[in-house]
């Protein structure tokens, strides 16, 4: 409970006034000893005093700007803490057909942006972090429940991309973001990429130990450009099967060898992206604890409302009040 204008509270002792001073117009009367004791009268007396007190108190609290303080509530929900690890290489600005977008066509990054934003909005209880990578990883948003920031970060992923793709260090950054997140809950990394380079052996070893240290779900959303290598297809016999020739296939194999919950989606158009994201949404339904921020709530309108009700009661009493009065030359007012 806070007051935006606490000086008004100095007036608060005024609520005692109705208990000491009469509020109705008084009639002098010779003697009240013969007046019968009456429960209803006494009840009305106290009700009116109370109403007067409430009216004054309500107005004073309203003037003082009574409000509920902003606070946080811990809630249980279903969801996860998800790091979106997004490829910012220049190829993401192309369409799924590998061309510059024109007219009605949508670039891969625009599709990813649209669908990821939907995903973020739909997942009410999840916390998101955003990291990007190209030649070097970029820390964008730590894991947070401020959806606005996350949406802003996702909005920016269709800006013209940078040069290359270093997925290994990107994953390292995503993992470090997960390390910084202290709240309990299941963790996931959604890797959105349209083609990767080789992950060096040393980096691979580092990632292997990192992944082994903590339980993380990994989702690999491979936005496959038409004509590029498939992640799952084994190369035809005789073809070269090296990480240099088929980096996606070998990355997939590397992820599979990590012994963590891992799903790979190879998508070739926006609808497939959507299906994959929906699938991720379905999979990430573990119970989590999250905090909900309740903003400051202005109670003064309620205070004024209560005061108005009390004043209405007093007004009704005023209208019911009678006077003992003799009007010369006519009947006195009943």
């Amino acid at each position, binding site marked *: 409970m806070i007051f935006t204008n606490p000086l008004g509270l100095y007036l608060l002792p005024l609520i005692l006034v109705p208990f000491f001073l*009469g509020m*109705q*117009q*008084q*009639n*002098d*009367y*010779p*003697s*009240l*000893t*013969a*007046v*019968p004791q*009456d429960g*209803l*009268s006494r009840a*009305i*007396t106290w009700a*009116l005093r109370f109403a007067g007190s409430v009216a004054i108190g309500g107005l004073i609290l309203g003037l003082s700007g009574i409000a509920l303080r902003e606070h946080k509530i811990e809630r249980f929900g279903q969801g996860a803490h998800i790091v979106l690890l997004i490829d910012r290489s220049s190829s993401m600005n192309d369409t799924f057909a590998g061309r510059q977008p024109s007219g009605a066509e949508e670039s891969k990054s625009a599709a990813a942006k649209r669908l990821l934003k939907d995903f973020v909005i739909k997942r009410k209880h999840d916390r998101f972090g955003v990291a990007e990578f190209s030649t070097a990883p970029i820390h964008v948003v730590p894991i947070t429940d401020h959806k606005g920031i996350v949406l802003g970060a996702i909005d920016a992923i269709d800006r013209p991309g940078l040069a290359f793709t270093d997925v290994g260090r990107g994953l390292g950054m995503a993992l470090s973001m997960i390390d910084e997140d202290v709240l309990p809950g299941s963790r996931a990394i959604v890797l959105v990429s349209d083609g990767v380079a080789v992950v060096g052996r040393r980096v691979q070893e580092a990632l292997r130990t990192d992944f082994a240290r903590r339980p993380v779900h990994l989702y690999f959303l491979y936005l496959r450009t038409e004509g590029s290598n498939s992640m799952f297809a084994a190369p035809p016999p005789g073809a070269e099967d090296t990480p240099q020739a088929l980096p996606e296939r070998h990355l997939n194999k590397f992820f599979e060898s990590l012994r963590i919950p891992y799903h790979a989606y190879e998508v070739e158009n926006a609808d497939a992206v959507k299906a994959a994201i929906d699938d991720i949404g379905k999979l990430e339904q573990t119970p989590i604890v999250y905090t909900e921020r309740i903003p400051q709530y202005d109670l003064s309108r309620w205070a004024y409302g209560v005061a108005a009700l009390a004043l209405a009661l007093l007004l009704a*009493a005023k209208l*019911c*009040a*009678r006077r*003992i009065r*003799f009007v010369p030359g006519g009947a*006195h007012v*009943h």
Partner: protein
Amino acid sequence: MNDAARELAYAIPWRTSGVRVGAHKSYLSGSSGLFRDIVPLTTFPDPRRIAIRASLSDPFERLLVRRAEQPSAIDVVVLVDVSASMSFEGRCNKIKMAADLAEGLAICSERTGDTFALLPFDSSLRHDLVLWKTLSRAARLGAIEQLRNARAGRKGADGVTEAGAAIAGSRKLVFIISDFLWPESTARHAAEALAFHDVVPLELRDSLELEDLPRWGLLNLRDLETGRHRLIAMRPSLKEKWVTLRKEERAHVTRVLDQNSREMFAICDSVDWMRLTAYLLYGAI
């Protein structure tokens, strides 16, 4: 002050022992007026009133004389309650009405040659308003005028005993003008203090006090005596109860006063002087 008030008259159903010649029955005998009895000339040596026939037929051959009634003057005392409750103003102003009554009685007492005393009281005797026994016309009117403009403020009516002590002595005609909203103890003390006198209680009432109160609505009343407030939700059943309670309270006071005084005469809103005169002369209303 209307003319009817000047016609006010009173009579006493007892003989006064006053020795000053006046207009009321007394134990004194005189030479003229109403025949009273025949006594020997030695008892009442007034040879002008010799009863010849009675003397001739007297077996003891005494000389007898006729004796007549000798009316005497009495002392009239008006006790006026000026306690706070008397300042209630509805259809009438009780203090002014009390002053009117006192003036009527003052004029009447002047006419019959009686002395007049005015003793306003609240919780004690109001010495600033008191008029001690007097025959002076100017003093009476002055005191009554003072009473008419007096402010009733203090609570309680216990000064009636003090007033009773102040007028102790020979039997007097004592009027008590009050609203008689007294506790029973005050009434008892008043009755004891005035037991020797001929007490005439005149009750002043206002119809707005009770009978003409609204039947419905909220009334915020302030007790003039105690200053306390009460909010009363008026409704017919409550009013009925109120009237009953008030009647009971009044009955208590009148029962105590009735033991030593004449029947209480109630004056509501305005004085009916003819009725008051009839009551004072014949004891009937």
